[in-house]
């Protein structure tokens, strides 16, 4: 008899099978993932990756008998009252006999939907597939930033943090050996001998002399000399990267209802997940505005409340300022996503147009405008009311500016709209057609 402990064997024996399975159900799983993203709170995306896949794609057909055809026999346990020749009414809604364990009506439909759990990675992979920042390649070639350091041997100067201790001490030791620096043991031995001798012993002066010379020598030859020091050298090297910055502009003015703010936030959270996951070098700037705009951090942007009037140009001015300060359009791919209910002071229209046309859009690779509307949407029969901002932007778009506009009324539309705005070129062309 052998006992084998298999517990330490590497797990995940089924991983290749799982990958094959996922590849098989990719299309359906992707659809299911997007379905599930509609109603779910976007913040929870990927936390719970349970997906239901219709069974069609993963059916394993076998020849089996159709229940409810022909003469079927059932042997059942637990008879109480029946005697031979009794008749039993057919259970409603089933062709087969009652209690026919495997053969009953469940046979066909038991596999109707198939549920399984995706890991967070798998979920987001499917969720964000095909999305990308448009035109990112344009400047990628041009921008070869010097970023990143790598080890490159040793140097004699440097910051103490980079001191190469082993290397330094090795140098020190070879120098000490070469220059015959007295070892502490030698000095100690001599001292001991000196102590042992009585005062006035004839050998004493010689010994004292020797000890003095040793001490002097040790003093002249330091343990660690500045010439021993070595530092780890780091060398900057050019790494081609796509530098991108995303400006998130959100209207938080009083005219935005809770519903609208919710929509806008959902949109930005989606954007945030997408950017942080897909691009390692994307910076995100959060700007929110009422009648004046401020740059805020992530927490404040998503969390805090504020009310006031609306002045869209204030956000654009703030964005322009940040660009001028930190993001040179020659070095950066600049993107902007703006969410608003479309209300604006009418006098602000020309100012905004001017700002966009001459400052923002020339600097931007892509400008996405998301207009959030009422939950109920435009009332049936009424011509959809065009908001001030929409008309302003529409004029710019017609003139050929790199601006994409979408309107959202319900949160289930967020994800499709998001895909339209950031889907790959081909996909976007289709969606618009």
């Amino acid at each position, binding site marked *: *008899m*052998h*006992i*084998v*402990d*298999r*517990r330490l064997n590497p*797990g995940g*024996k*089924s991983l*290749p*099978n*799982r*990958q*094959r*399975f996922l*590849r*098989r159900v990719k299309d359906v799983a992707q659809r299911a993932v997007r379905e599930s993203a509609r109603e779910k709170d976007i913040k929870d995306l990927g936390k719970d990756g349970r997906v239901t896949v219709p069974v069609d794609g*993963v*059916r*394993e*057909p*076998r*020849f*089996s*008998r*159709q229940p*409810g*055809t*022909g*003469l079927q*026999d*059932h*042997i*059942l*346990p*637990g*008879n*109480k009252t*029946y*005697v*031979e*020749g*009794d*008749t*039993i*009414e*057919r259970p409603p809604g089933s062709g*087969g*006999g*009652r*209690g*026919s*364990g*495997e053969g009953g009506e469940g*046979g*066909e439909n038991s596999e109707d939907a*198939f549920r*399984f*759990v995706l890991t967070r990675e798998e979920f987001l992979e499917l969720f964000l597939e095909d999305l990308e920042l448009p035109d990112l390649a344009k400047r990628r070639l041009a921008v070869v930033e010097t970023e990143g350091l790598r080890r490159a041997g040793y140097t004699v100067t440097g910051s103490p943090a980079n001191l190469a201790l082993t290397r330094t001490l090795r140098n020190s030791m070879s120098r000490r050996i070469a220059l015959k620096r007295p070892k502490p043991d030698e000095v100690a031995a001599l001292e001991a001998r000196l102590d042992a001798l009585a005062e006035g012993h004839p050998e004493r002066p010689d010994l004292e002399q020797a000890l003095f010379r040793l001490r002097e020598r040790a003093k002249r030859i330091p343990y660690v000399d500045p010439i021993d020091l070595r530092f780890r050298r780091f060398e900057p090297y050019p790494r081609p990267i796509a530098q991108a910055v995303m400006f998130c502009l959100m209207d938080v003015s009083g005219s935005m209802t809770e519903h609208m703010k919710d929509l806008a936030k959902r949109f930005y959270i989606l954007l945030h997940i997408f950017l942080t996951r897909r691009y390692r070098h994307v910076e995100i700037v959060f700007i929110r505005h009422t009648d004046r705009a401020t740059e805020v951090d992530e927490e404040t942007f998503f969390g805090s409340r504020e009310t006031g009037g609306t002045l869209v140009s204030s956000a654009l001015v703030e964005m322009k300022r940040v660009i001028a300060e930190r993001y040179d359009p020659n070095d950066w791919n600049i993107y902007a996503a703006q969410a608003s209910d479309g209300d604006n002071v009418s006098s602000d229209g020309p100012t905004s147009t001017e700002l966009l046309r001459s400052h923002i859009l020339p600097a931007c690779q892509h400008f996405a405008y998301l207009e959030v509307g009422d939950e109920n949407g435009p009332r049936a029969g009424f011509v959809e009311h065009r908001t001030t901002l929409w008309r302003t932007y529409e004029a710019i778009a017609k003139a050929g500016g790199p601006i994409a506009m979408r309107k959202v009324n319900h949160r289930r539309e967020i994800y499709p709209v998001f895909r339209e705005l950031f889907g790959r070129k081909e996909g976007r062309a289709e969606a618009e057609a």
Partner: protein
Amino acid sequence: MTLVKARTPQIIAGNQKPLFTGNDWDFDTIRRIHDACEAVAGPQLGLSWYPNQIEIITAEQMLDAYASIGMPLFYKHWSFGKHFAQHEAGYRRGLMGLAYEIVINSDPCISYVMEENTATMQTLVIAHAAFGHNHFFKNNYLFRQWTDAEGILDYLDFAKGFIARCEERYGHQAVEQVLDAAHALMSQGVHRYPRKKRPDLASEQRRERERIEHGEQIYNDLWRTLPQKTGAVRSDLAAERRKALLELPQENILYFLEKVAPRLRPWQREILRIVRLVAQYFYPQRQTKVMNEGCATYCHYRIMNALSESGQITEAAYLEFLQSHTNVIRQPNYDDRSYGGHNPYAIGFAMMQDIARIAEQPTEEDRAWFPDIAGVGDAMAVLRDCWENYRDESFIQQFLSPKLMRDLRLFHVVDDPEEPELRVEAIHDERGYRKLRRSFARQYDVAWLDPDIEVVDVDLEGDRRLILHHKAINRITLQKDDAKRVLQHLADLWGYDVVLKEVEPATGAVLGEITASARPIFF
């Protein structure tokens, strides 16, 4: 039916030190448990078994093993990933417990036991799997005839490697398509009866010579003057000969495809062969569910009781054992909400107990029904003989006693779609016993349960249309959707059109027809 047997008072002389106390175990405990079980299984029960190999695994590894139908190594396919996902989801949501053990019909016999099991559970599963199942695998005629316990792990290793190499060489998709198609036909990929051995050249020559000699001996010139046969008969003969050459009719469709399909490439044939051999390896297990589990359950019950009587397991452990034992052999009634068919553990264990009773303390009825075994005294000898020489269907047909039918209160309901109501055909009474037992046994006849589908004819020189018949016994037809899909797979492998006819065997009437044309995916 109660299973808590009145326990005999402990024999003072046999009072031994308990093997373990509490729930914890270590490898030394496992070894002691195994040796103690062995001491019961050999001398007292007369079992014989392959050498044991006990492997400790984690829950995750158990899920892995589930997904590859219990085998320690297996080729890769998405369907196993699907089953893994299913089991995992069920397990995580707490809908499903995991098995305490998995046992593999191999030599040495490998039993996987879970690390979470308590010491009592380890004793139970070792008695159950390492001795009960092991004895059954080694001795039952079906396993001896159809499976090669020594070679299976090596063969699976070969299969895994071969399919991986094919994936590398021909691409994942091409291999997946062949495997999908082969899996669809898996239950039509077994030989149900041993085939005739092909004669070798020497014996062919010898027979030929004998035939000529015989012809010379009975030569009569008169035969030459008889009129010639007509042409129609001759073409009929040609068809006969064609069928004979292709070994038609053939129920093993995978075998037929592997040998005859005109357009398959060698590696595709080899994959069909792998799937077919795996199906064949598992075929005996499908035919002996009740007996296999009954044998293992009866063995663990006897071993645990013996250990308890000799004081090797404590009262507490014995109660824990009884609890899981009674759980395992629970059989809900047909009108119970938890009823899901017959529980093979329950039927098997009850029949084993019943046979032991008949052998040792028969009633008058038993003597009339089972003159061969009633009162012979040595229950284990009778049981060992059953385990060796029967499968579920023949076992039930032979040994289901009237008493057990009464205990289980079995009854037989016939569902005839022509009639407005269901009819109770037989119950557990004098008139019903034999009828009941016959139809109950048939429920365990795999050949009766699986649809009976045969390749009937194909004209290889003509349009190469493959003709299959499904014998629709009792006019039960195939499930249309699935049948269509399977037939599509079959047509893809065959490379030409395929037609499946539903034939009623009694009258030869055709009830329906499904056709499929090959898609150009394999060639």
